[in-house]
């Protein structure tokens, strides 16, 4: 009964029907543009959304520095101005959380160690959330494989904290989220992240946090 009366109504008022269709077309176009543009914008503003390989606390984007980097990787670099490290140059590993998966926080103390993957040189640098090297009164934001002090077995321990520590120590900024980037220069691992053994990566252990 209701259906029949509605059909009759629409037959009687074709102008109203056309107006409803026009509104729906405009609605569909606006929704498509809004969703399409905003999702593209969000996915290309920060990290590379695809191709990540996780190993413990560390993340590698092995294809980011190759000829066949995916379109999202290219778009991220185009928007941020990033210049990726080529596959033949080395490999970039990033950690934004400790081994237990808790985000790295400047108010906490972390112990890193004790091994690093095979490479001619490596550097370990501390950044703030926006990708700037941390600014501390000490003026140091990184350690290189040549600078770091090692024990008799060749293993090392690096402490990240606000307060001074003996041995290898990287000073944390006052507050905020931080992330660590390890770069392996001229490493056999750069030809494929598969060659990267999780046990060879330094572990990141949270020791304590000041509130």
């Amino acid at each position, binding site marked *: 009964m209701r259906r029949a009366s509605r059909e009759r109504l629409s037959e009687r008022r074709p102008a109203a029907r056309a107006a*409803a*269709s026009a509104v*729906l*077309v405009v*609605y*569909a*176009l606006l*929704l*498509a*543009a809004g*969703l*399409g*543009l905003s*999702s*593209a*914008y969000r*996915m*290309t503003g920060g990290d590379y959304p695809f191709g990540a390989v996780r190993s413990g606390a560390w993340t590698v984007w092995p294809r980011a*520095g*190759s*000829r*066949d*980097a995916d*379109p*999202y990787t*290219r*778009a991220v*670099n*185009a*928007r*941020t*101005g*990033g*210049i*990726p*490290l*080529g596959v*033949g*140059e*080395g490999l970039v590993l990033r950690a934004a959380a400790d081994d237990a998966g808790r985000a790295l926080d400047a108010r906490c103390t972390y112990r890193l160690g004790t091994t690093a993957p095979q490479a*001619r*040189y490596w*550097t370990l*640098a501390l*950044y703030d959330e*926006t*990708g700037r*090297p941390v*600014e501390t009164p000490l*003026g*140091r*934001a*990184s350690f*290189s494989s*040549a*600078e770091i002090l090692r024990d008799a077995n060749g293993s090392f321990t690096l402490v990240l904290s606000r307060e001074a520590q003996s041995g290898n120590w990287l000073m944390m900024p006052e507050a905020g989220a931080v992330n660590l*980037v390890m*770069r392996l*220069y*001229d490493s056999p691992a750069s030809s494929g992240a598969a060659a990267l053994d999780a046990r060879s990566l330094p572990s990141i252990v949270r020791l304590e946090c000041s509130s």
Partner: protein
Amino acid sequence: MTLRSQFLLATICAFVLAGIVHLATVLAIPHLAEKDAFSRLRATLSTDRSEIVAAPGDQGTWLPYPDPGVALSTCAYTLDEGPVRVSARTGALFQSLSLHARTGGVFFAITDRAAIRGALDLVVMTRRQLDEALASEDPDEPSRDVRIVSPAREGLVVVRVLAIFPSQRGEATEAAKAVSCTIDRE
């Protein structure tokens, strides 16, 4: 068709269209970007020397996630006027050189291990320029140039020199600055 089913149909169409818009946007970003590395370095197209983008320990660079131990210098190039000859001298410090196409993708990378008598020399050219060079070459005296075909007409030459100790920062910056990128007119 009832109004409700029309509305549902419009929403489904919108989602499909949104997917197309999304993909088109992602693919278009490298071509439209104004803050990508190539656009920022466009001014260096006319100079023959590379320009320092991030000196070791430099806080003021626009480069995201700069390695505080690395001096990074680049030359932007276009292959419109001819092949580009890149030459770098290697020293005691770790040095690497990579070629980036403008719209993304590292198409060549090499480290100082590949240097011959302390020099890294490359000629970057298009496929067509390579064909021309091969055609005009004397078969008895083949060129000794290392020729690299660029997938795009525009791109960046990026040189990284690692200062493993803070005392080497000045030396690393000088080495990175000394890279030349000249247009090869024959």
